[in-house]
């Protein structure tokens, strides 16, 4: 099953299970989204539950917040994560704060799905990975699946969660295949997954960068360097314990994330490691994220901005000496 199919299956199963669940967004019904992730859902659930909206991201996100507060469980589809800018007031000032501002009386059980990731030659406004913005805000949870299995289990948890959850899917990974069991399952938030066990260096990677880290780990193997690859799966809540334990075990850590390196997820996780495992470290924690430039269009330029397995490999070798 592909990652895209896993997301669709999770949505379909949750919509069957709970009639309060609905999806809204641009071109999601008959079009099935521009990435065809939701193809076919409208046939089963109808246009009322797979709701095409005007191109009004703030508006339909705001409606989802209100619907969530009053008994529905909306899933909002934001076509490109870059459009997060348009929904920020609704997500940050409304969804994230409603529960707290009301002293716990109101809740906002909604999911905002969005895509991240570059390398589709889509240029600066359709290629960013802006999940760190949401992870910065108390009241939100931020999910970054890297496999079909994780995508399905995490999406189900997201829909069943009583908090606003932001769910980022890497648009380049929709075709990634992986095993997904037939039975119903969920994956709890805040539980990292060790994608590969190793002893010499820990590579903490999210979303699109998990595959990059795994490829780098294979390259390192040839140099007798055993890399552990850990996917936090949710950057908030963050499974600090697993990350710190691995750091203590291997003594060397690289954090790879496709968001901007500066003030980003890599910075946060590097701090967590530094605070939690400092006296077990053999080397400074290395961050690898997107270059601090708007994502360029021209292929060779775009490729230069995004972390690669070669870059991770090189960094790991340098840290291992």
């Amino acid at each position: 099953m592909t990652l895209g199919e896993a997301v669709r299956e999770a949505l379909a199963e949750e919509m069957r299970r709970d009639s309060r669940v609905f999806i809204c967004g641009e071109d999601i019904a008959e079009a099935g989204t521009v990435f065809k992730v939701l193809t076919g859902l409208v046939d089963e659930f109808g246009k009322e539950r797979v709701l095409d909206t005007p191109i009004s991201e703030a508006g339909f996100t705001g409606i989802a917040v209100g619907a969530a507060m009053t008994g529905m469980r909306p899933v909002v589809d934001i076509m490109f994560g870059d459009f997060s800018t348009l929904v920020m007031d609704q997500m940050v000032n409304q969804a994230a704060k409603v529960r707290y501002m009301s002293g716990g009386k109101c809740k906002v059980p909604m999911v905002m799905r969005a895509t991240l990731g570059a390398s589709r030659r889509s240029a600066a406004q359709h290629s960013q990975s802006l999940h760190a913005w949401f992870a910065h805000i108390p009241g939100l949870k931020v999910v970054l699946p890297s496999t079909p299995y994780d995508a399905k289990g995490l999406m189900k948890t997201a829909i069943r969660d009583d908090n606003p959850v932001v769910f980022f899917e890497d648009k380049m990974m929709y075709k990634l295949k992986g095993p997904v069991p037939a039975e119903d399952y969920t994956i709890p938030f805040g539980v990292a997954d060790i994608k590969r066990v190793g002893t010499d260096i820990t590579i903490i990677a999210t979303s699109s960068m998990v595959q990059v880290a795994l490829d780098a780990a294979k390259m390192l193997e040839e140099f007798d360097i055993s890399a552990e690859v850990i996917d936090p799966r949710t950057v908030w809540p963050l499974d600090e314990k697993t990350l710190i334990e691995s750091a203590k075990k291997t003594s060397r850590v690289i954090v790879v994330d496709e968001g901007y390196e500066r003030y980003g997820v890599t910075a946060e996780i590097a701090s967590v490691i530094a605070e939690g495992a400092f006296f077990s470290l053999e080397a400074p924690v290395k961050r690898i994220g997107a270059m601090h430039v708007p994502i360029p269009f021209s292929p060779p330029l775009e490729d230069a901005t995004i972390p690669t397995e070669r870059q991770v490999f090189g960094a790991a070798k340098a840290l291992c000496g």
Partner: protein
Amino acid sequence: MPALEMAQETGKIVSWLKKEGDAINKGAPLLEVETDKAVVEVEATADGVLAGVKSHEGDVVPVGVTIAWIVAPGEKPPADSPAAAPAARKVTEQPPQAASMPAPISVESSARREGGPQISPKARRLAKEKGVDINRIKGTGPDGTITGEDVLAAAAAPAAAAPSARAPSVLSGIARLMAERTTQSWTQVPHFVLTREIDVAALQQAREKLGPAIERDRGVKITVTDLLVALAAQVLKKHPKMNASWGANGIQLNPQINISVAMAVTDAVVGAVIPNADAAALADIAVQRRNLTERARSSRLKPADVTGGTFTISNLGMYKIDSFNAIIAPPQAAILAVGRIADRVVAVNGRPAVRPMMTLTLSSDHRVVDGAQAALFLNDLAEAIRAPEL
């Protein structure tokens, strides 16, 4: 582990002179410890019973770490606590004092200790936990960073290597110190060398004349070195700058004339000191020299035996060396290298003659003395050797 000398960071336990459970009297020798410079007997600091011996022969232990307990009879040693192992004392770099001892550590090693070697946080923690001196570890990580593995290897090394050959980098502080100090001297002291061939017939006569009485009275055979120590000490009185030190404030004249005699120990050479040699009788010099030699051979030199020298004599005559250039032992200003005595054909009153000849080579610190001053000293020494007044 007691601190036995200035700048000492660790001590190696050579042997325990008492066993666990033995009754101990305060002041009695308890164990032997090898420092950078010497092997020292450590005396018991209290009456009681030796208990809880934690460090064993061959262990290198940081200063301040508990190695054993002296307890009252029936008392048990306290439970093991890692907190009892403080970090090695911090070394503060001081200019060598004229009246005290040679600079204990080289500038290079000082710099390393001051700024600290590049070391990972993990390695630093492990070093503290295991009581390993990070200054003794060569890092194998990126840019020479000391890694946790390096520390663990260093911590494991003494125990693992104990029965077999010593790992020089860990075990022989003396060898390491020699390496550091000669390097420092060779690279930082502006050496210049003067050579003089001297007829030593008179010296040999003096030895034959004075030797039997001294051997009879004091039980020691005088050597050429003893004679040279005595003569050099006398000549140095007239050449105080040759007996001076180079320090932070420039030239410092030393009030005493303490002659160091270079002596081989297990894997290095040390300068064993005959203090106030200018005031000592030849017999006393010979006895002191003999005692020092014996202690050096058995690795039992005490810190005081090797500190405070103001001028060094190094004699390789017994190794059939004709002449050689010696390296000055800072902060001393000069070292006299003594070659063998051999019969040579030389011109005497315009005619060839066979005479017992010896080559003296004087290395001097040009910051302290110039060529002429050193030449005058060497000339006066040569005259004293040709007509010894002993």
